[in-house]
């Protein structure tokens, strides 16, 4: 009995290699309740995957702060000129 119990638990446990594949699903709330519980149980016992999740969160937050290249004043003037021509063309 005891041996079977251990094997079941082993199957339920996530390997780190699998855990890192679940990060986006986890952050998007797309895991089932079971998967989510297993993922969080893995994190609770694994500092490396906890750090990995933290780095993914930092990456995502940083990407949201990367500004696109700005509009040059000349390009802006060109667009305003185009706007006037479009307006007058009806």
């Amino acid at each position, binding site marked *: 009995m005891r041996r079977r119990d251990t094997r079941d638990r082993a199957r339920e446990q996530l390997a*780190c290699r699998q855990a890192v594949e679940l990060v*986006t699903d986890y952050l998007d709330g797309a895991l089932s309740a079971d998967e989510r519980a297993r993922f969080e149980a893995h994190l609770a016992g694994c500092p490396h995957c906890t750090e990995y999740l933290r780095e993914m969160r*930092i990456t995502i937050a940083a990407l949201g702060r990367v500004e696109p290249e700005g509009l040059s004043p000349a390009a802006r003037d060109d667009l305003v000129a185009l*706007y006037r021509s479009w307006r007058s063309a009806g």
Partner: protein
Amino acid sequence: MVDDSDLVARLQAGDEQAFVTLVDLYHAPLLRLASTFVPSRAVAEEVVQDTWLGVVRGIHRFEGRSSLKTWLFRIVVNRARTAGVRERRETPTDRPDEPAVPPERFNAAGGWTSPPAPWSDDAEDRIVARQTAAKVSRHLNLLPDRQRQVVVMRDFEGLAAPEVCTLLGITEANQRVLLHRGRSRLRNMLERELGKG
């Protein structure tokens, strides 16, 4: 924050200053998004200019059922996709089995052998700083098309998952797979950058 309905009313009335406000807010993000579909900056600029023409012509039809930003993104994506079919970019293909982390960093049982080194508390600011941000943008161009489009929409522009699915005509599951691979690649690249000290 500019109020959508006020801006829309002014655009519909032909207020040039409202158009300038819109251009200041969205030209750069639209250009970045268009660039993920077409081979060159020049084509992306044409696409965005064409988008502005579409906006000027179509603003009277805008009913506010989506946000102005979503509406603009829909126009630019439609135009960029058409232009992208005409002028294909050379891009790496998307591998469906691509792992988030190189497999050699795990042992046979799937545990870390080369775990991620902890990032410093100022890591986010270091990534956003100009030099690293430029490297992020360059690295972004190495991603397969769909990955890059999804990462730009979700993580750079902050669009919600359902909006991205509608814009690209893909399922939520597919969208998450693409996002996951794209993000993971960028994290791996940032890990190498931040590790340089």
